[in-house]
């Protein structure tokens, strides 16, 4: 952890309209297990991701979606099983190309601007976007002097998302990034995400918003009680879910 | 028993008290503090017997009605210690006053306790006798530690400085290094210890009986004999002189 990270310049969306191969893929997860205090929270998880685009992770509360993201990102240590990004184990270099927006935004006890500066400083190449551009995009420039932790719930989520994007990752984990964001900003963020996806960034997103997943996802991972139940093309998943749990989840019925 | 530190540090009580307790079945608790504090504590009735060495202050204590009657117990003497190099060249002097003059002239570092203890008062009276006022040089060559005898000696040894101490403390002092007694034997350096009981009329909770027992015992032939017998490193520390 001693060596400092160099961020690649933010992918210029206008110059890179075509999908280019993401150097971090494929992701291969094999027999992943994670438990806390004898409780098996993620069990026998096998997954292969080589699609570009956005992978949606869905499943009822407590299914283990957030845990899975943290395992894939290397924040948690699995009990057993392997995670390989482009045939590399999860080392510091792999991790530096990733970023994550947490379910609960973790904001520094500083101003909004300082929260952005904090990650910008960390990137040694001058990112093409300035702090001001980033904040304007997130609709927070007006509040840049305000303590970040006094922002409204939705504003905090926006700031966390903007901060993650400022690191110009190749892989971006999103844990319910629009949960408390108003409908129009949600739309706007979805457009952002589409553009980012098109610039070759792999997005892995947890969401409970079925409409959103339909709009954005190219494939869906459905989890239940720590297990993978389905991993299919998005269209197939939403039209003809196989497992009864997924059917119940999508129809808004109680998933047991 | 409110006592000075010098007698306590010399180990005298550790030697005497078990014998006293065996004789009389009276238990003695020693609070060893500076002479000034000891007198103050005794004035507050926080002790039954006072054993210190500052004759003027003791007599004042009696005169003001805090104590009953003062007795001489024993004496020893003060000495001047210093580095073997003896920069002020006081080694062969007989008179304390002469030594002080030489020290002042050569501005050799001299450490004073500066704490109004019996030793300090003695030292000041010697300076006065020599017609000198060292306090004006305070912080330069005249340095007041404001501490007990042991601490002052520690500083003196470290600073290669002169100091005046009672012989008992010096003999029992553990950190002498290469220091030597450079001047002693002057009758001006006589160090008298006195014992007295606090006034039972002022302090109703005091153990008058025990206090009396102790004073009688220490002034008795037995007590005095034991004091004479107390030796450290082959030297007698205190000389009994009860009348």
């Amino acid at each position, binding site marked *: *952890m001693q060596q400092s990270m160099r961020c690649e310049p933010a992918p210029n969306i206008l110059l890179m309209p075509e999908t280019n191969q993401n150097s971090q893929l494929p992701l291969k997860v094999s027999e992943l297990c994670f438990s806390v205090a004898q409780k098996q929270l993620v069990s026998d998880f096998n997954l292969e991701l080589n699609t570009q685009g956005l992978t949606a992770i869905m499943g009822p509360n407590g299914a283990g979606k957030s845990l899975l993201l943290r395992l894939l990102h290397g924040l948690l240590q699995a009990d057993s099983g392997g995670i390989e990004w482009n045939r590399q184990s999860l080392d510091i270099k792999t991790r530096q190309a990733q970023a994550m927006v947490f379910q609960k935004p973790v904001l520094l006890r500083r101003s909004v601007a300082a929260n952005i500066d904090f990650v910008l400083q960390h990137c040694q190449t001058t990112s093409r976007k300035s702090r001001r551009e980033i904040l304007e995009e997130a609709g927070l420039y007006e509040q840049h002097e305000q*303590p970040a932790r006094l922002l409204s719930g939705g504003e905090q989520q926006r700031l966390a998302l903007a901060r993650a994007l400022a690191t110009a990752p190749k892989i971006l984990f999103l844990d319910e990034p629009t949960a408390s964001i108003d409908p129009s900003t949600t739309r706007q963020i979805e457009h952002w995400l589409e553009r980012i996806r098109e610039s070759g960034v792999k997005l892995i997103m947890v969401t409970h918003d079925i409409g959103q997943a339909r709009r954005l996802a190219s494939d869906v991972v459905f989890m239940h009680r720590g297990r993978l139940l389905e991993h299919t093309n998005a269209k197939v998943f939403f039209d003809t879910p196989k497992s009864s749990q997924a059917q119940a989840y999508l129809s808004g019925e109680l998933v047991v | 028993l409110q006592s000075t530190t010098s007698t306590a540090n010399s180990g005298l009580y550790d030697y005497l008290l078990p014998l006293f307790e065996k004789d009389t079945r009276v238990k003695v608790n020693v609070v060893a503090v500076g002479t000034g504090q000891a007198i103050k504590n005794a004035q507050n009735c926080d002790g039954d017997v006072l054993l210190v060495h500052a004759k003027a202050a003791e007599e004042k204590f009696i005169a003001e009605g805090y104590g009953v009657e003062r007795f001489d117990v024993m004496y020893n003497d003060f000495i001047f210690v210093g580095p073997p190099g003896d920069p002020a060249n006081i080694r062969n002097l007989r008179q304390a006053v002469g030594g002080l003059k030489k020290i002042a002239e050569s501005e050799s570092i001299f450490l004073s306790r500066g*704490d109004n203890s019996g030793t300090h008062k003695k030292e000041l009276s010697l300076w006065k006798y020599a017609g000198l006022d060292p306090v004006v040089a305070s912080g330069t060559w005249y340095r007041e530690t404001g501490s007990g005898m042991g601490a002052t000696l520690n500083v003196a040894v470290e600073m290669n400085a002169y100091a005046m101490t009672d012989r008992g403390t010096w003999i029992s002092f553990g950190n002498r290094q290469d220091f030597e007694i450079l001047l002693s034997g002057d009758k001006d350096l006589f160090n008298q210890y006195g014992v007295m009981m606090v006034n039972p009329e002022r302090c109703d909770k005091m153990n008058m009986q025990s206090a009396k027992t102790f004073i009688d015992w220490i002034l008795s032939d037995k007590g005095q004999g034991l004091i004479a017998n107390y030796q450290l490193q082959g030297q007698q520390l205190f000389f009994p002189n009860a009348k």
Partner: protein
Amino acid sequence: MQEFSSSFGLAFNLLISFDADLLEIIGLSLRVSLIAVVIAAIIGFPLGASIAVMRFPGRQVVDILLNALMGLPPVVVGLLVYMMISRAGPLGWLNILYSPTAMIIAQIILIVPIVAALTRQLIEDLHREYDEQFRSLCLPMSRVIPALIWDARYSLLTVVLAGFGRAIAEVGAVIIVGGNINHLTRMMTTSIALETSKGNLALALALGLVLLLLSLSINAAVYALRASAKHLAYA
């Protein structure tokens, strides 16, 4: 009990008399304690934060040791420093025994464990929240630790004040390495000890009141500083 009331009067007189000796003693006390506490914070903050943040074998032992060192007896610190810098000691050539420098060193040794142990606790509590975010950003320790210290700065002020309290009130160590020499190394606490041993209890208490007033004003100044800064970008 008459000492008790008279010492208030005495303290008042001491203060308004602007006695040169007293001012000298106050000045030295403040100088030594403030320098010591600043240096202790410079050492103790990163030290405590590192222990809070880093995972290394033997971390628990370091943690326990640090907590235990909060109970370092001043006299022992005084003796250790004394032995190091005494003429016979390995650092004797520095020739700093019985000087304010020696007192500062002793106080630093005394306060660093306090600052570091309390910092460790505060930073650990904060780090529980920040940990995953920082690891997600792959931040090196050299950025994590300053960031945590900065974000905990208002809470850490209390830690510094605890260290300052210890320093300004301390007598055991400074009297050994400083020697309580008049006009050279005499501080408030050593004067108080001296007056006590002289039996001037009222004067000793009066000096104690003055000392308390001193730390009260330092604390009030810090409080005002904090209050004026706090509403800027912090929550």
